[in-house]
Every structure is written in structure tokens, then in C-alpha cells.
């Protein structure tokens, strides 16, 4: 038979152990696991994501991967992306965005834009300190704020970036090979044509 | 002079209680009036004790203490009766509680 009231004492012991343990636990490994946020930053896991950004290679003007194809704009479920195609001096559209805005107060971080982008241009960022007083001034990100280099992308998401780079490299190699093959083919054709011409045209000296 | 003043105050309190008990038709107000009258009585006990020839005998004080104890019992039973009456008649108007049979 348990002594009446012994359960209360057991419970008190548990809280007392917690109380004393929280002072002894210098390493904060088991108790006091709360992060002291502004002083202690969380170490983000690699897959953490917040809002999209635009990747460029090398130069932010020329190296921009986006071609303003507007697939992401159409696919975006909360419709937070707004794109206007750029035009050259003659008014002819060129494959580059003139305006690329993302309203991150609307964005829900679904990553669909990343899934659908055929140019590996839009990727997810992991910034999280974006609170601001004015949502239209500061929370609508423009092209200048969205553009971040591929180096940055490799830093925040190394595995993904490596895969992307490999894909781009493979595509480039494939393209180069195709071009080479085409060139070879063209050269071969040219040579063949030349040979044929040579065949049909008798050797003037012969 | 002070004794008479205290007695007059007590008389006024008593008459307020009487007024409440006589004019209000709500049983609880009648009870409130009775409590006031008892309080006036206690005040008289204390006043007479203070100005008595032998205050160290504590006669008035003892009376007041017993009277307070009795008033508490009276209030408890009275309110229990009022609640029972309300349960029967759905009303605490003393004009309606005119039957001896439940």
C-alpha cells in the first residue's frame, strides 16, 4: 500500500531535480536547450528553405540565368511572382527579365517555382530575418535584391548546388558534344561535298 | 452625551432595518432589514458596555458576541428557507408565500 500523498512527493522530487540540474548543466546539452536567439544563431539544416531567389553566374547583368519565360509566374499558387520581359533598343523582346518581383509576404515557400524552372534559375534561399514595418516597401523583393550568385547558392545548399551544377555541366557538355558532332557532321558533309565535287570535276591536270 | 448619541445612531439604524423589513416585498430584503436591526442591537450592547459602571465585567461584549453568533445561524436558516420557497413558488415575494402547505 502506498502512503497517501507519496505521489506528490515524487512529483516534487522530479521538479527539484530539474531545478538543480538546470544550474549544474553547464554544457546545456540535456537541459536548457533554448537557443538565446540574437546572441546564439541557429545552425540551419541544409534543406531549410524560406523564399526564392535568382541565381546568376559570374556577372549579375550578363550571367543571369532567367530568361523571363514566365513559367514560374504561371505556376506560383499564391501568385506572388511578377515578371516583365526585357526589350532591346528596337523594342524587340530579349530573353532576360526587365522586372522580376517576388512578394515574400505572400510567398508560401512551396518551391513549385524551383521545380518548374527549366533554366535552373530560381532557387530557395534560407534567410529568415526579413521582418519589416512596411510590407510594400521592404517585403516586395525586386530583381536587384533577388539576384544572388551561384557561389552563394553553393554555400547555402551545397548538395543541391552540386547537383544543379552537374546538370548544367552535363547539359553544356551534351550541347558542346552535339555542337561538335554537328560541326563534325557539317565538316564531314563539307568534305564529302568537296570530295564529290572533286569526283565529278575531273582533275584539270589529269 | 456620547452614550445618548450612540443610542440615537443605533435607533436610526434600527429604523432603517424596520423600514426595509416592512416596505420591501422581497424576502431577502426583509432578511437584510432584520440583520440591520440585530446590528443596531449589538451597537446598543457595546455602547452600554462602554459606559457601564464595570466595563471589566464584559457583560455587553459577551452579549454582542453571542448575538452575532445567533445572527449568523439565523441568516443561514433564513436564506435556506428563502431558497426552498423560491424553488416551490419560483418567486421570493413574501406576499405569495401565504400557504403553510408546500
Amino acid at each position, binding site marked *: 500500500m502506498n502512503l497517501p500523498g507519496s505521489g*506528490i512527493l515524487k512529483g516534487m522530487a522530479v*521538479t527539484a531535480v530539474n531545478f538543480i540540474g538546470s544550474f549544474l548543466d553547464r554544457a546545456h546539452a540535456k537541459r*536548457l536547450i533554448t537557443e538565446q536567439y540574437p546572441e546564439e544563431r541557429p545552425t540551419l539544416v541544409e534543406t531549410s528553405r524560406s523564399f526564392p531567389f535568382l541565381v546568376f553566374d559570374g556577372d549579375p547583368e550578363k550571367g543571369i540565368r532567367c530568361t523571363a519565360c514566365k513559367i514560374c509566374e504561371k505556376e506560383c499558387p499564391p501568385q506572388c511572382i511578377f515578371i516583365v520581359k526585357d526589350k532591346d533598343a528596337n523594342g524587340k523582346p530579349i530573353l532576360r527579365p526587365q522586372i522580376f518581383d517576388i512578394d515574400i509576404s505572400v510567398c508560401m515557400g512551396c518551391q513549385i517555382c524551383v521545380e518548374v524552372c527549366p533554366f535552373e534559375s530560381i532557387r530557395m534561399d534560407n534567410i529568415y530575418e526579413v521582418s519589416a514595418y512596411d510590407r510594400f516597401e521592404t517585403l516586395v523583393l525586386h530583381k536587384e535584391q533577388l539576384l544572388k550568385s551561384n557561389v552563394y547558392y553553393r554555400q547555402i545548399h551545397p548538395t543541391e548546388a552540386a547537383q544543379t551544377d552537374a546538370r548544367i555541366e552535363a547539359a553544356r557538355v551534351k550541347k558542346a558534344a552535339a555542337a561538335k558532332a554537328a560541326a563534325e557532321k557539317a565538316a564531314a558533309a563539307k568534305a564529302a561535298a568537296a570530295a564529290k565535287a572533286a569526283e565529278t570535276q575531273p582533275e584539270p591536270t589529269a | 452625551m456620547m452614550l445618548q448619541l450612540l443610542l440615537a445612531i443605533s435607533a436610526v439604524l434600527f429604523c432603517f432595518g424596520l423600514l426595509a423589513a416592512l416596505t420591501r416585498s422581497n424576502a431577502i430584503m426583509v432578511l437584510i432589514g432584520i440583520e440591520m436591526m440585530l446590528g443596531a442591537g449589538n451597537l446598543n450592547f457595546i455602547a452600554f458596555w462602554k459606559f457601564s459602571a464595570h466595563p471589566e465585567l464584559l457583560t455587553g461584549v459577551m452579549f454582542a458576541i453571542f448575538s452575532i453568533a445567533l445572527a449568523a445561524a439565523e441568516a443561514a436558516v433564513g436564506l435556506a428557507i428563502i431558497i426552498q420557497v423560491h424553488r416551490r413558488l419560483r418567486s421570493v415575494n413574501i406576499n405569495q408565500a401565504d400557504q403553510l402547505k408546500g
Partner: protein
Amino acid sequence: MHFLENLPLATKKFILDLVKGACGWLCTKLGIALPPWAMPLLLTLVSILVVIVAIIAVYMVMFALMSVAERKILARMQNRYGPNRAGWFGILQPVADGIKMLTKEDLVPRGADKIVHFLAPIAMVAPALMLPAIIPYGTGMVPVELSAGILYFFALGAGTELAVFMAGWSSNNKYSVMGAMRAIAQMISYELPLVMSAVIAALVAGTLSPTGIVEAQGGYSLGFIPNWFVFTPWGFVACLLFYIGALAESNRCPFDLPEGESELVAGHLTEYSGFKYAIFFMAEYVGMFAINGLLVTLFLGGYKAPCPFLEWIPSWCWFFAKLALLAFSMVWVRATLPRFRIDQMMQFAWKFMLPMSFAALIAAAVWYYAGRGPLAWGLSALIVGIPYLALGHFCFTRHHTADNRRYLYSE
């Protein structure tokens, strides 16, 4: 150390001398002849005022410290840090809380009874601030020496119930009324064992005066065990009962169901905000300190030192150390025990605390007349022990535990 012991009284005397000197100087300067009764009257008024200011200042500081210490201790017991942002280790948190409370809008519901709604916080805080007046804080340091001090304490404690009712009823909110009704039911139920256990201490000490009760606990048995009432079987039980009653009277966990957030929003405080809410909050804490101070006075030897060789520490330090210990234990209990259900709370008061307090009363009387020796000890331990085990076994042990419970449809 004699200097420290006398420090509060010496400060008071210094202030009185200062007032006396200043007044005399002013009168000679202005050429006013004071009648003979004027100076003593003035000094009496000033000494009353000094004591009032000192009490309120001490209790406000304790309230401020408690409000941050409680949160920090509670946090540590739940493996958190608690407030540590405002100031050094969060020590300025009460200031931040105060500023927040005072700058909040003071809302009065449209359907509320405005006058009663306004008067309720006043009716709450006035008795709470009057409670500490009879507690002896040190040797010769009792603000008001009353021959019926204990009775005074409980008479004023009754005012709290009234204030809670006023707050609940005037808010015109069903949660407020329900919370107020629960609070009053709880306070009335737990006032009985509370008063009964206080009566036990008064009975053995033979006086209702708090100073007399403390003096009755002076001295040491066997040379080192203090003669506090808590170290006797009946005193231990009465102390525990008083402690539980104090928890219930000050609406603290596990008896905080009048303001149980999950059921009643905030009970009778639902419609209060800003300064009025702060006043309720303050009154609750001051009431808690006061009732803990009474517990120290009644059972824990008041301002007496626990061992003979520690008597060089000033008596008022001992009082406040014991008070701090009790306040800590209340936080500890809060961190440990979940909230009662309303029927459990009533059952506990009427089926356990009241019989136990009667048992402790009988045990105290037996101990008193059996000569306070080992025999008295045994007898009184038996008288409180048997009802405890019996009540605990028959009323408060769940005989349907997980082992023998049968689930009809899940097997």
C-alpha cells in the same frame, strides 16, 4: 551584530528625531507656541506613517522580486531560462511589466456595473495591504500589537471574498461570475481548515497575539532542536493544512481554478485590464506574502533562529529568510502539481482538510495535557496519523488503477 538587529528600529527613531527637531526649529523660527499635546500627537502620526510606508515599500519590493523570481524558478523547473532580457539576468522585468500594465488601455465593458467594477480592485487591495500590519517581523518589530491579531487577520481576509464577488458580478460576463463563484466557494471552504489550524497554534500558545505565539516557540529542546510548532506531530499536520489553505486562499496552483485559463478565460479578472488588473495582481501577491508571514509566525517560529549558534543573525533576517523559503516552495508546488478539478477541490476541503484539522486539534490538546514528553509525542502522532492513513486510503486512493481497470470495448 547588535547594530544590524536594531537597524530598522534605529532608522525609525532617527526619522522621528529628525521630524521632532525640524518641527521644533520651525516653531521657534515662526514664533508659534505649541500646546503640550501637539508634539506627542505629531510624533505618533509620523511613526504610524513611517511604519505604513516601510511596510508598503517592503511588500512592493518583495512583490517585484517575486514576480520575476517566480517566473525564473518556474522556468528552471521546466528546463527553460525564463525572463533574461530586461536588464541583468532579467532583473528589470518587473519594471517592464509595470510599464506595460500602466500603459494598457483601461477597458470597462458596456454592460458592466461601472461603480462596482471600479470599486472592486480597491476593495481587493485595501484589506490585502492591511494584512501585514500584525505580523511580527523581528524582536519588537510588530507594526500593530493587537491582542486578537490572528482574528484581525482572518476578519480582513474575509474582505477578499467580497472584492472577488464584486469583480465577478459587476463585469456582466458569465465567465467572470462563474470564476467569482468558484473563488468564493473555494475561499469559504478552505477558510475553515485554515482558521482551525491557526486556532491550534493559538490554543497551545494560549494567546491570539502573533508576538505571543512566536514567543511561545522560543528556546530549544535537547539544546539544538528549536521549539517550533512544526516540529511536533500535531504542529506538522496543522502547518501542512495551513499551507494548503494558504495556497487555496491566495488562488495559487494547484488551487487556481477560479482563474483557470483553459476553462474560464481568467475568471473574475476577465474584464479587467491595465492598472486595475495590476492592482488585483498585486493584491494577490501581497495577500500571499501576508498569509505566508502568518504561517511563519504560527508554526515556523517567526523571527526565531533555527539553531542556538546562528542567533547572531538579526531576527528580521530570519523572518524574511523563512518567508522567502515558503514563497519558493509555493512556486515549487506550482511547477509540480496540476490544477484540481472543482469537485476534487471541494471534496479535498470537506472530506480531508476539515477532519484532519479536527484531528490535529485533538492531538494538540492531548500533547498539551500529556506533558509534552515522548508519550505525548506518540499519542498525538497516533491521533493525527490514523485519520490520515484512513482518509487517504478510503477517500483519496484510486482503487481503479491502470492495473485492474477493464476496458469493455478495447479488449
